[in-house]
Structures are given as structure tokens and as C-alpha cells.
């Protein structure tokens, strides 16, 4: 959502997270805000503050009217000269983050924003990170965007700032080709292929320096990848033009939209029906005494997420965007902002797909594959609601990879705060056996809930989840074995 700050007259971006339905501990969100608040760079979207309204947390960030690179690619991929500019700016952003002892962890076109003047900003870190962690160990959920992940991140063998360099290389391919390598494959399978296969290369009609640049980023051993600072010296980016050229991409996108390139979706969504107030609590309990008249007021929440079946999607929080925007005191929604309506409408449905069907023959568009998000309800709700640009899924981004207090000298970047634990891949055998159940199978089944309509079907899906859980209890590790079997057989079909 985009709004403007009355005090500064500046347009700002606001994310709204309903803490009541968010999976995350408030402490974790606060940690992320702490980190965000300490960042100040022209290459990173600036954090302005966070405010609570009922149980809705409003996070106010710098607004970038140009949109995300993944939006801007909708009319077509970028020419190499533009990519060089973007990559240079990204490297500057990464150089800053890494020197501050932070990792982004989710570099991809959808998280790269352009200002009106073409400045390139890294977005979507912190705050929401916990909500949608690429692989969030603590919540045991499997969410995220495997296509951009480096082998060492997937293998959980410990990683550092070089993981961002890998993702940058993948992003460069994405910008050039429209999608990252393996985009046509099921994300689960991709998690197996990235660590197994040789690194992808940039194929096609591109200059040698571009292809070389990408190959530098995409080296299997993180130690072989140059740092952001070193990459800034590479010919590919040294020759890049000024950022103001990037406004051409914004104009191209404007034209494309004006020509009807993007069907405007109906932004009206069913409003979540407010739960009836539970009433004065003292109506129920009998304390045998005179009631306290001055019971403190209840908290001012507008609506309550009705909890659905376990681990399902809930998109019903979405429409709040509009109404909250209008009744806020200090921040008002910018009138007639077509972009904000477009964003919010886009945000509601298609962009947060459950696991795409494995056998899907059609090549997916970038923004579809941008997110594989199989999380418990809250994660999706919050995400859906709040982003200015829907494709730009908040996710785990900054990791203080040094002790926050011991931090900040550039070359100490080795103590990795290992948040991830979840997915086991290949030979990794020291993971808890139930990870596959909790992180993959149950969420995958959960993702089917919104696709079925009858109560009977939902009951059947619940039964399926219970059956898996029960089987796992009796035969620990069985889910993992089963999934391995399935993936193996998939690979045998598709791998030459």
C-alpha cells in the first residue's frame, strides 16, 4: 500500500501485518525492526517507523514508485545495458549490507525496486523476514523461493555473504531471460538439483563480459565467488551507464500498461466478516461479586481472523488495506493512486500460489514462481495484505550473521546465524525426522484447502494430514523416505 506522510509530504510504502494471525513471535519481528532501523543507504529502502493499530502492525518504508524489477519485466526482459546498471547498483547495496554485517538472503527481481528517477533499491528485508522466512526453521515451515538459493544455503552447510552473490548471479539471469534457471520445474525438485548439478550459466546472445560476470557469481564453492566490492571492479558493471537510464524501463512499463498489457483485476474482495464481540467477559464467569464497572477497554481490533483448517491459506485479511488506509490518523492513503489499487488487487490471489502442480507443462511467469509459499495461514495473510508490490514477497532477509553486539567489521562475516534448518536434502542425515512432515508434506496438503470447495473435501484433506502425522508417529522418518522415493522417481523420468 502506498500512502503519504503528512509531516514530510512524502509518499511512503506501508506494510500491514496482523500480529494476531502472524506466525511469528513479536520478539522476532522486533529484532528485524531493530536491524532495519540501523540501515541507511541510498541502495536500500529506508525504514521510517512502525506503528500499531489494534493488532495490525504498520511498517512504514520508503516508497519506490518505479515498482519492482519483476513488475517492470512484464512487458519483456531487460536489455543487457540495463541489467548492467541494475547489477552495479545491487552490488553497491550488497557492499553496504555486507560491510554492516548483514545478509539480504532473498535477492531476486521481485525484491529490487526502482525509484521514479531510476535509483535501484534493495527491498524487503527484515520485519517480514520472519514471517515468510525462506526456510524458517523455527516454525518448521517450508516457504520460499528455491530458484535463487545457493547450494550451500540449501544444504544448510553454513553460509555467509557469498550466498547473496550467488542469488545476484541468478537474478542477473532472471533479468536477462525472464526467469531464473529451473523455473519450469517444481520447486521441491529444484532444491535437489541446485546442490547436485553444475552451476547454471548464462546462455544466449549476450556479451562475453556479462556471461563471465554471471559465471563469477555462480561458483559452487562460496570461497571462489568474489565479494560485492570485488565484483564492482568487473568490466560488466564498470561500463554501465547512469541509473537515470533505467527510467526508460519505467516508461516502457507505463506504455505497456496503458496499452492494456495487464488486465486490471477486480480489487473488490469479500470483506472478512467481523467476529461478533465475545461480549463482556464477566457475562460468563460468576465471581459472586459485584462486577467491576471500570474494566479496562478491550483492545481495538477491527477483525479477527477466523482460524480455518490447520495450515491453510487465508486470504481473507486482504481487503483491510483500503479501510485501514482511510481511517488512519497520520497517514492517509493517497487518493487516486492507481498503482496502489493495482497492487492490492494483484496481491490477493494469484501471486501466492500453493505449490504449483509438479507436472505443470506451461512455463510459469516470473511472478508466479516468485513465491512458493507453503506456510501456515498467518504467513500468507500477512504477506498478502501488506506489500505494496505483491510480487515482492517479504521474506527472510537480513540476518545478522554476526553477533549483533560483536559486529560490524566487514571481514568477520563468518559467524552465520543459522536460522534455517528445515529441508533436508540428499545426504544430509542429521536433521530431525519430522522436518519433512512438518515443513513439506503438511503444508503441501494445507495448500490444497483453498482449492477445494466442499466441506467433505476439506475433511478428507484433514484426514490425509492426520494420516501422515499418525504414520510419522508410528514409523518415524517415513514421510522423508516417501518424499525421497517420489522425488527419485520424478528425477528418473525427467533427468537424461
Amino acid at each position: 500500500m502506498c500512502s503519504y506522510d503528512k509531516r514530510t509530504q512524502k509518499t511512503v510504502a506501508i506494510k500491514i501485518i496482523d500480529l494476531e494471525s502472524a506466525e511469528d513471535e513479536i520478539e522476532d519481528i522486533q529484532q528485524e525492526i531493530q536491524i532495519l532501523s540501523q540501515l541507511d543507504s541510498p541502495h536500500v529502502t529506508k525504514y521510517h517507523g512502525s506503528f500499531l493499530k489494534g493488532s495490525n502492525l504498520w511498517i512504514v518504508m520508503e516508497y519506490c514508485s518505479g515498482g519492482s524489477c519483476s513488475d517492470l519485466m512484464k512487458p519483456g526482459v531487460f536489455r543487457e545495458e540495463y541489467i548492467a546498471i541494475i547489477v552495479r547498483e545491487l552490488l553497491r547495496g550488497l557492499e553496504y549490507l555486507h560491510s554492516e554485517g548483514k545478509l539480504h538472503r532473498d535477492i531476486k527481481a521481485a525484491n529490487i525496486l526502482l525509484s521514479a528517477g531510476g535509483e535501484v533499491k534493495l527491498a524487503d528485508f527484515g520485519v517480514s523476514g520472519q514471517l515468510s522466512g525462506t526456510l524458517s526453521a523455527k516454525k518448521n515451515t517450508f516457504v520460499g523461493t528455491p530458484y535463487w538459493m545457493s547450494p550451500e544455503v540449501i544444504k544448510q552447510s553454513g553460509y555467509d555473504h557469498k550466498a547473496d552473490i550467488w542469488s545476484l548471479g541468478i537474478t542477473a539471469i532472471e533479468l536477462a531471460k525472464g526467469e531464473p534457471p529451473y523455473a519450469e520445474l517444481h520447486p521441491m525438485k529444484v532444491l535437489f538439483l541446485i546442490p547436485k548439478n553444475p552451476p547454471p550459466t548464462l546462455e544466449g546472445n549476450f556479451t562475453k563480459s556479462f556471461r563471465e560476470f554471471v559465471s563469477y557469481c555462480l561458483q559452487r564453492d562460496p570461497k571462489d565467488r568474489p565479494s560485492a566490492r570485488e565484483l564492482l571492479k568487473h568490466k560488466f558493471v564498470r561500463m554501465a551507464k547512469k541509473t537515470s537510464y533505467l527510467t526508460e524501463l519505467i516508461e516502457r512499463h507505463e506504455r505497456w500498461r496503458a496499452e492494456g498489457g495487464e488486465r486490471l483485476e477486480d480489487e473488490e474482495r469479500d470483506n472478512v466478516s467481523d467476529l461478533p464481540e465475545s461480549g463482556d467477559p464477566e457475562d460468563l464467569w460468576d465471581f459472586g461479586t459485584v462486577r467491576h464497572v471500570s474494566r479496562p477497554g478491550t483492545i481495538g481490533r477491527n477483525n479477527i481472523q477466523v482460524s480455518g483448517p490447520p495450515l491453510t491459506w487465508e486470504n481473507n485479511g486482504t481487503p483491510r488495506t483500503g479501510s485501514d488506509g482511510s481511517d488512519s490518523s497520520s497517514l492517509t492513503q493517497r487518493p487516486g493512486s492507481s498503482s496502489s489499487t493495482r497492487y492490492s488487487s494483484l496481491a490477493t490471489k494469484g501471486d501466492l500460489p500453493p505449490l504449483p502442480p509438479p507436472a505443470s507443462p506451461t512455463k510459469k511467469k516470473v511472478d508466479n514462481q516468485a513465491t512458493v509459499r507453503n506456510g501456515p495461514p498467518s504467513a500468507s495473510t500477512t504477506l498478502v495484505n501488506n506489500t505494496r508490490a505483491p510480487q515482492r514477497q517479504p521474506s527472510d532477509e537480513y540476518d545478522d550473521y554476526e553477533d549483533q553486539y560483536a559486529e560490524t567489521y566487514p571481514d568477520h562475516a563468518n559467524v552465520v546465524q543459522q536460522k534455517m534448518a528445515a529441508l533436508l536434502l540428499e545426504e544430509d542425515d542429521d536433521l530431525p525426522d519430522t522436518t519433512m512432515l512438518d515443513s513439506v508434506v503438511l503444508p503441501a496438503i494445507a495448500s490444497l484447502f483453498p482449492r477445494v470447495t466442499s466441506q467433505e473435501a476439506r475433511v478428507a484433506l484433514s484426514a490425509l494430514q492426520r494420516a501422515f502425522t499418525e504414520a510419522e508417529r508410528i514409523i518415524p522418518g517415513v514421510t522423508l523416505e516417501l518424499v525421497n522415493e517420489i522425488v527419485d522417481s520424478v528425477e528418473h523420468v525427467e533427468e537424461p
Partner: protein
Amino acid sequence: MNFFKTKQRTPPDLVRGLRDAIPKLETGAPGGETRRKANEDVSKNLQQIKAILYGDGDPIPELVAQLAQETYSTDLLHSLVVNISRFEFEARKDVVQIFNNLLRRQIGSRYPTVEYLCSKPEIIFSTLGGYKNEEVALNTGMILKEMLRHEQLCKILLYSDEFYKYPHYIENTTFGISCDAFANLKETLTRHKPMVAEYLDKNYDRFFSSYTTLILSNNYVTKRQSLKLLGEILLDRANFNVMTRYIANEANLKMMMNLLRDKSKNIQFEAFHVFKVFVANPKKPPQIEVILRRNKDKLLVFLKNFHNDKEGKPLVDEKQFLIVQIQGL
């Protein structure tokens, strides 16, 4: 002359340079040359002090010792905390790093900065007071957090009246700051358990009358977090005496029973974890048992339906346990 310019400045030079520059931040016209220059000096000196402390991964112990001594003898740390809001963005971050590095500095089993701060409690209080200014609250919050790792410093704060300013900072700031203040309150109350247990036992009434305002806050986050922390405090073995007193009080039980029916599921859930302690108590005082017995049927129905959508065996087991207890009343 050039020769001398390149020479590294000594710790006393740096500390003096910094101390001289700080008062000038407020002199001259806003945006004027004097201020700009002063700000530059502050930032530069802080950077160089930080460079000494962190070195290039390899700080020189003699220089560090000299610097630490100089900061103590000039009360530099207090001056930094009090003036941090006048510094530039990066300089504020440097203050935090410098302060926390000195706090962690150890010689044998001694922490010289901690000993110094013990003799200057006003620095601890000024750091807590950083919550008054949203601009720097997260910076000073980080310093406070580092202080609280040390039992002596934590104790000084806990036993002071200043401690009772936490609720004010938690209630009257925006989300990020409020949460940070709460996190430090939690740190104060949970990091050094035996010390805190003794305090809570001795100051039971004052503490809980203050803490209850947080539980009854209109702020969703404050309410939810303070309930959760209450549960943690009560269930900690170190706080057994405090828990016994808490669960003997009927007003506390009523509050929890009401919170069980809060609109927010999360708050209900946190309240449940406090409520269960009342019910599980094998020696329930009469006033508690009376309330539970009077609501027996309603409680049984309520518990059977409580958060049935939630997964997780522990909750199911605990509910079952409570149901059995209540049936037996």
C-alpha cells in the same frame, strides 16, 4: 608538519577531541558551520576510537587499556549516552559499538567497565532514559541490553525507582521502541533468576501492581507480551514463592479468567498458561477454590471448546489435565 598529521592520535587526544566537540554541537546557528564542523569532529573521533577498540581484527591491548582508562576518568560514556541524539546516524551506531565493546572488556575475571558503571549508576539510568527519544531509543536500547547481561548492573536498575519507568516507556512509544523496552524489561526480569526472585519476593506488591497495568494495557502487543512473560516468570522454579503468592490471589484469578475470553486468540492462549497454574495448584486456597467451583460447569464447557483448532499435543494434554482437576472440585 605533514609528518605529524599522519601520526595516529593517542587515546587521550581522541577522547579530548570528542569531549571538546560535543558542547559545540549546540552552539552557533542550526545548520551553521560551527555545528557542522563539530558533528564532523564527533563522527571522526568516534570512528577512530572504534578503530582502536576493534582494530583490524587485532586491537592493541595497551591502546585499548589506555582508552578505557581515559573514558572512565573523563566520564565520557555518560556524555555519549546523554548526547547521542545530537550525533549523526552512523556516529550513533559507533557509540553503541564503542560502549558495548568496553562493556564486554574483560581482564581475568574482572569487567572494568562494569565496575566503573557500578560506581556511576546514573549512566545506567540515562541509558534507560534513552527511550524518551524515539530517534535514538533503539541505539540506547542496545547499550542497555548489553548492560543487563551483567548481574550487578541489572540489580542496580531493578532496585532503583527508575525500574518503574519501564511501563511508561512501553506504553508511550511506538511499536518498535515499545517492543525494545519490553524486551529489556524481560531481560531485567529473567536473565539473573535468583537475584530477581529475591527482589520479587521482597517487593511483591509494588512490582505486581505496576506489572498488572501492562497486562491490562489497551495496547494489544503490550498486553500479549506481558501476559506471556508473566507465565514465564510464574512457571520458573526460582520464583516458586512468588508464584505461590500470585495464585493465592483471587483478583489475579479473575483477571486471568476474563483474559481467557479476550477477543484475541493469542491473548486467550497466554492467559491459559497462567490460568492453568491456579487450577493445577494442589493446595488451592479456599477463595480460589470457591471461584473455580462456582464456575465448574462453565469452565468444563469452555475448556472442552478452547482452541480446539490448535494443533499440538501439549495443549490438549494440559486441557485434559485441567478438566480432570476441575471435575474433581
